[in-house]
């Protein structure tokens, strides 16, 4: 495959994984948790790097998952001590992120891991790190990681589809049915962290929030059916990722920034034209009923 094809494939995979997992972020009303986790994952990656002294996918993935789940745990713990939920999030993620930046500035100081890169991602470097897999052949490491993560996400969503549905819409009912709601919460936070780590190389810490929340929020305006929303959100993610790449190529600017911007365009279109919840239909409908 050519250089550009790899980049587009990687971007599309980011859009797909983030779009699918983002649906549950919106439904569980924990969208800002994505913001918190995407920041603290940086700390996990830095610590993994300091321990292993190499930029390896597996170590970063483990570090990122641990950091993400740790964040979720700290937020929950502070909340149980009566700190307002969003304040708890704000304290935890800014502090852990600050520690991550300080560690990079003081003890890493290396071209492989700089803050700039972590915040903005550098998708153009991805095709330079190729690995060889048994059946598929040569594939960029980040792309292989994304494929693996996508498989994991899809496995968990499909295997526990009913449980996710009930815990997301009615946690009290789920608890009364004997579904382990708290375990599901941490499992979900783990999945969000995995997705964030895998997307990190491509879009960076902050733009991944756009990829996680916006396609799902757009899909939420089009449909009331969970399965349809998952498909729609994944497609919106892919469309924005690919469109973002072409916008960036067109005006020669940051690819990750353009991808975030493209998700905004998708949302704007949904916000205006959605048949159920769009601006136009809201304006037209009262006239129809008269």
């Amino acid at each position: 495959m050519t250089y550009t094809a790899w980049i587009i494939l990687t971007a599309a995979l980011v859009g797909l994984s983030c779009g699918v997992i983002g649906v549950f972020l919106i439904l569980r009303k924990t969208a800002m948790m994505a913001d918190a986790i995407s920041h603290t994952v940086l700390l996990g990656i830095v610590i993994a790097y300091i321990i292993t002294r190499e930029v390896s996918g597996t170590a970063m993935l483990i570090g990122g998952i641990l950091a993400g789940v740790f964040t979720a745990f700290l937020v929950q713990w502070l909340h149980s001590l009566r700190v307002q939920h969003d304040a708890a999030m704000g304290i935890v993620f800014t502090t852990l992120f600050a520690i991550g930046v300080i560690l990079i500035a003081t003890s890493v100081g290396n071209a492989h891991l700089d803050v700039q890169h972590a915040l903005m991602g550098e998708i153009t470097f991805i095709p330079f790190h190729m690995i060889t897999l048994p059946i598929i052949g040569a594939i960029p490491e980040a792309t292989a990681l994304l494929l693996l993560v996508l498989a994991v996400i899809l496995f968990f969503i499909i295997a526990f589809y009913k449980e996710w549905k009930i815990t997301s819409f009615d946690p009290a009912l789920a608890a009364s049915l004997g579904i382990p709601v708290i375990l599901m919460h941490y499992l979900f936070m783990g999945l969000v962290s995995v997705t964030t780590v895998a997307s990190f190389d491509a879009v960076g810490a902050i733009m991944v929030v756009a990829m996680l929340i916006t396609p799902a929020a757009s899909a939420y305006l089009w449909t009331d059916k969970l399965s349809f929303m998952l498909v729609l959100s994944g497609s919106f993610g892919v469309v924005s990722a690919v469109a973002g790449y072409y916008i960036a190529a067109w005006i020669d600017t940051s690819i990750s920034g353009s991808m975030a911007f493209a998700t905004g365009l998708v949302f704007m279109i949904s916000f205006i034209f959605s048949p159920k919840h769009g601006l136009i239909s809201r304006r037209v409908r009262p006239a129809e009923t008269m």
Partner: protein
Amino acid sequence: MLSILLNSNTGWVLLSTMTLGIAAGTIGCMAYWKRQNLMSDALSHAALPGVVIAFLLIGEKNLLILIIGAAISALIGAFLIQWITTASRISEDSAMGMVLAIFYGFGIMLLTIANRSAGGNQSGLDGFIYGQAAAMVRTDVITMLVLALIVVFIVFIGFKEWKLYLFDGQFAKGIGLSLKGMNTLYTAVLVTTIVIGIQAVGVILMAAMLIIPAVSARYWTQSFKVMILLSAIFGGLAGATGTLISALGSGLPTGPFIVVVGAGFFVISLVLGKEKGILINYLQFKLHQKAQQSNAQTLKQEG
């Protein structure tokens, strides 16, 4: 250490981060009681495109112009969050997350273009993302000081009105206070505090300056007035200490150190604070347990 203080520029920077900490600590208490802690995070990210557009328009790094750009952009962000939340079924935190990330992404697009153009890279525009207080010159410091003092002054003179607005909106309306006017003023003050802090702390960590001192202060008092005072002191101390630490090494970012010092205050307050601090809660629990046990014993002896 002394040589750092004697270096006149560091002295000025120290003064400005301290004043910023005081202003942010003060406004943070209001955001805390409005339950809008993460709003500051969304708005500081949303300020980025405004900073870059202002820079592209004037072609140099004039802090006042950049601050105006940032404020306009953050206000648009605030308006969009409000609009999306009221006009659709998207919840407020989803709207905040979207505005935060999309504005930031747009800002990065523009920043890449600005850095490509002549002089953009040397202007230190990148410092805006994670804060580089050491890069501030004296005029920047004066701009910041004046704006921060205005913010603190507005809170100070209208203290009674703010209190009514935050704790009993209905009553405030009843005595003829315009809630809409207070809301506008609150947003203006919040956005001003955020944008003056961006240069020193960076867009990503600015939220911490508002959230952490306020929550820490909550552990020491039940009075709103004392809470604001304490929060301002925590913020000011964190600003000054963090700046000093980052001045010890060369090229260390200021923002993260300020945040970590602030987090230190938070942990101390969380453990030792006299209102629902962990230690106090634990001691009370133990005392209660002991009282129960002795009660049970006396009952047994009597029986």
